[in-house]
């Protein structure tokens, strides 16, 4: 089960994801992120992964695509709250160096 919530914090949008991010749910998640980026055009998009217990390659691809679309709008993408399992995947793929990653949502919002 995947739970996605979005909210606005000033010029920033926060997308909170909970559950397993794999091939079956990427379409749903892609729509939410695209809607958020196109309608809110946030200066900063924060994706909170605190409640994500698994992410596969499709999920990683989605985050890469999210960074691309935010870049195009001259915005920034910050990720936060990576659980150990997800952190490991990011380390293995060097994505730790591709994304701006913060420990908490507050840090991610402040890091703008």
């Amino acid at each position, binding site marked *: 089960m995947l739970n996605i919530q979005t909210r606005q914090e000033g010029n920033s949008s926060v997308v909170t994801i909970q559950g397993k991010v794999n091939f079956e749910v990427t379409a749903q998640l892609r729509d939410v992120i695209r809607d958020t980026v196109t309608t809110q055009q946030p200066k900063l998009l924060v994706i909170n992964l605190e409640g994500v217990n698994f992410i596969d390659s499709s999920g990683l691809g989605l985050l890469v*695509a999210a960074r691309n*679309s935010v870049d195009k709008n001259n915005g920034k993408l910050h990720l936060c709250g990576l659980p150990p399992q997800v952190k490991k995947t990011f380390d*293995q*793929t060097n*994505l730790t160096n591709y994304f701006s990653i913060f420990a908490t949502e507050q840090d991610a919002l402040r890091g703008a």
Partner: protein
Amino acid sequence: MAKGVVLVVDDEAQIRDILGFYLKRADYQVLLAENGRQALEAMAKVKPDLILSDLRMPELAGDEFCQIVKGNPETRDIYFVLVSALDGTASKIGGLNLGADDMISKPFHAQEVMAKVESAFRLIAMQKEIKRQNLELTSFQERMTTELALAARLQMGLLPRSPGQAAGIRYTHRYLPAEGIGGDIYTILPAPDGGTALMIADVSGHGVTAALISAMVKTFFEAQVRLGGDPLAWARAMNQDLARNTLPEQFATAFLAHLDPATSVMRYVVAGHDAPMHIAQGSSGGFMKPELLPGKGFMLGIDEDLMFQEQSCPFEVGDRMILFTDGLVEVEREDRAFLGHDGLLRVCSELPGDAEQAVDCIVGKVQAFNAPSAFVDDVTLVVLDRQ
């Protein structure tokens, strides 16, 4: 054109006349019969869409007639309404149990019968439409299945012949796609310098798109190898090729390597892929100490400007290398546990010396660990024995 064909079966001429009159007036083609026997004869000439049949009739009564119609695959789709003087719920249920689609009790109002007929024809139209769509879907599905089977065969043909040999190594593999065709690919080919080049890769996503990209990955890799160069150059070029030719969220994790059999040195790049397992003297079998090769890096294809790192390790005669895609170790069991790398290291700590037996042993042990959960992602497993 008539709205449809209705067969009225009743031994009372008056009832046949009344129903016939109303039905014709409402633009239906009407067939009349005095009993079930006559009705069957009429049906042999023209197949009705709907039958209004009395229950009590000489020669062949309505209940038996209904059973014959509903028992014949040719006629069972005809909408059957039993008209019965036996009122009451019990007889209605009895009639429906015979296979009749609806019941009307006698005496009836002609309007009531006509309303039932109209509603029955709406149902018939819907059923016809569903049947047509079903046929369309079935034929579409058959076409897709055939095409996928062809594509799967083609994809199998893209893999090296297993078991096989290249300069300095013997290899074998098991390839288990999740959906007939998948995004895993591996290839082994001679390098221009006399060494052996090899790659295992896993394209993000599943199915046809992933399979198409996996064929591109193989082509890009082989083109790079023929140009000479080293794994680092291959990774850089393939990364650019993939970034330019696929969508942002499409990429491949890969392990690219070059073995020089003269020096027993393997140079490699880990591009977001699970690093292979190296087992010193593993090809003699028995209890061993497998180790994951060090190294990490970006996947191929997310951004043209990304940097990669090349590493090297000894790969001596008698050593064994186990290459795999993450589908092997990322099956979530019912208790939410994953085998993971530690689990795979345990599985590979005791393997038969024979590579065919070893590769089957790994798949078997992993499946036993995951049971009853099955593999959900594409799985590729390659055993390389240095010789």
